[in-house]
């Protein structure tokens, strides 16, 4: 399944570009309830490259829905029979313990168990045999298991985000864990990179690169680095969007004059024009059932968001508040649309419930851009400006819990939240 071809790829350490983008994560706001949970240091994790229990704790805390209970140096693993009354008296409603062992083939066996300390019940656990390089991933999967067992919602800690940083004349497309850690360079360029878009299977990124001194849409296999131009027509090529089955791509081309939306298959063949307005049509976004495309058009005089059938055809306007609405993102469960509205001079993230058309404002910042939903449809990542610096932020759909991802690698923009199933 995974190709060993790497003729385009460079080992990260040998590249002249920076390898790690470090994020500082600041949380504001808390959930309506915070579950007190104790996560004991995993047996065998001391001295390893990643502290699995620390990653699990940080993931759960970052959600704003959990409060960590100190473990006071307790020594436990997943095979223990912990004394629940002792943990309850420490204030914990749930307990996690585990172990890490080296396997004969060089991989690492990570095991854990989750207990309900209130009912004294075993909530199960798992064993993950992973390569050393996937230790962070194993920790995120453990956090996802705990999150889902205790909240009933699917977690997204094991997912990835793509984003672009710019420092001086260097533009870099990164792929990182959803907490911003473990960042690796997918593309390093002297020219701008915008609009990264994950394929539905999470294996590829489409993006717009200006490396040939004009915007061209590329598709790149994230693991191998192998890439191909998808749209490289005369004029500008931009705004790639994948259909939910991963077989089609919608993009914006100017080959026939001004910016219009076209569909093509994932290799760039079978080009079909979808819009035929006299204005600008851009920023296509498929609905999760693949039957419609939301997009931006200024055919009415100013940019508004419209919806049309995925094969093109008559479009219906969807935004009616304000004179400038752009950057639609549709939640994977199909219920919500996040977008950016210009209000006075401020550009601000909005959330529309599609069934009712009700709109709420999610932020108080003034330079919001590029919203993207997490695959559980419960979080949105977006770019914004705080204290003069371009940063990434995540927010819950009610706007209550926000996390700021502040990079020390320069301005951060253009986030795209990857799908499940890495």
């Amino acid at each position, binding site marked *: *399944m*995974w190709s060993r071809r790497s003729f*385009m*790829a*460079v080992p990260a350490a040998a590249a002249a*570009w920076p390898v790690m983008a470090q994020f500082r994560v600041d949380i504001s706001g808390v959930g309506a309830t915070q579950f007190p949970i104790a996560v004991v240091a995993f047996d065998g994790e001391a001295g390893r490259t990643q502290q699995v229990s620390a990653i699990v704790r940080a993931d759960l805390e970052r959600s704003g829905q959990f409060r960590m209970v100190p473990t006071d140096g307790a020594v436990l693993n997943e095979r223990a029979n912990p004394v629940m009354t002792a943990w309850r008296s420490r204030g914990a409603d749930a307990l996690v313990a585990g172990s890490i062992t080296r*396997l*004969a*083939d*060089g991989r690492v066996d990570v095991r854990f168990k989750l207990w*309900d300390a*209130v*009912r004294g019940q075993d*909530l*199960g*656990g798992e*064993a*993950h*045999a*992973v*390569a050393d*390089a996937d230790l*962070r*991933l194993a920790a995120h999967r453990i956090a996802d298991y705990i999150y*889902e067992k*205790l*909240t*009933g919602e699917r977690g997204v800690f*094991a997912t990835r985000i793509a984003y672009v940083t710019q420092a001086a004349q260097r533009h870099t497309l990164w792929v990182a864990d959803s907490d911003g850690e*473990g960042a*690796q360079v*997918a*593309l390093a*360029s*002297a*020219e*701008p990179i*915008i*609009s990264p878009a994950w394929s539905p299977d999470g294996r590829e990124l489409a993006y717009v690169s200006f*490396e040939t*001194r*004009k*915007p061209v849409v590329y598709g*790149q296999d994230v693991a*191998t*680095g192998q*890439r191909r131009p998808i749209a490289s027509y005369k*004029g*500008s090529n931009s705004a790639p969007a994948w259909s939910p089955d991963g077989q089609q791509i919608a993009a914006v081309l100017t080959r026939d004059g*001004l910016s219009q939306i076209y569909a093509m298959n994932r290799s760039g063949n079978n080009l079909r024009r979808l819009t035929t307005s006299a204005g*600008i049509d851009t920023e296509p976004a498929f609905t999760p059932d693949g039957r419609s495309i939301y997009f*931006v058009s200024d055919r009415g005089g100013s940019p508004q968001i419209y919806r049309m059938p995925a094969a093109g055809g008559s479009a219906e306007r969807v935004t009616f508040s304000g004179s*400038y609405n*752009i950057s639609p993102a549709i939640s994977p469960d199909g219920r919500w649309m996040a977008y950016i509205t*210009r209000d006075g*001079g401020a*550009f601000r993230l909005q959330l529309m419930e599609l069934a009712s058309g009700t709109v709420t404002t999610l932020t108080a910042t003034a330079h919001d851009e*590029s919203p993207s939903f997490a695959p559980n449809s419960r979080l949105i990542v977006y770019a914004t400006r705080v204290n003069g610096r371009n940063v990434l932020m995540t927010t819950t759909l009610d706007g209550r819990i926000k996390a700021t991802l502040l990079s020390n690698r320069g301005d951060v923009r253009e986030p795209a939240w990857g799908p*499940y*199933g890495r």
Partner: protein
Amino acid sequence: MNLRSLVTLGGTVLLAGVLSACGSNVKLDETPPVESRTATPVGGAGQSQSQVSTVTAPSGSASSLDAASQLARVVYFDFDSYVLKDEFRPTVSGYARLLTSDPQRRLMIEGHTDERGGSEYNLALGQKRAEAVRRALELLGVRENQLEAVSYGKERPAAAGSNEEAWAKNRRAELILR
């Protein structure tokens, strides 16, 4: 909602099975493997599901400046405007004469916007500026195959700053002879 009722909810919701991401997950109530036997989807001890390979983009060819040309290279636009101003018509006419007299020459027209607004919509607005210059040149007799209009949107500002002075210098089309 307390933990008790949530666990009940969780149990009901997850009756069908535990979340199982791709990977070699084994539930703990199964017989633990004595040795590794479950292959990870990528196979082998060295392959990782976290691997990202780096591509370094080759730098585009530098634009060739015509040493003999004394023509200005930049045309500026008013806010929210995509109309070629009269003061730049002499510049455009100069390029038209150069290009019509030498059909081998090509001209790349790059449209730009100031920093306000979203990247993709600004890419389209920058395109309108490049198109305005391209149309003016075609009307003066330059052949379509000598011209290409592209946009950088707000991605390559000429002047830094969040004020009208900087914004005015960024609302432009650049003319690059090849």
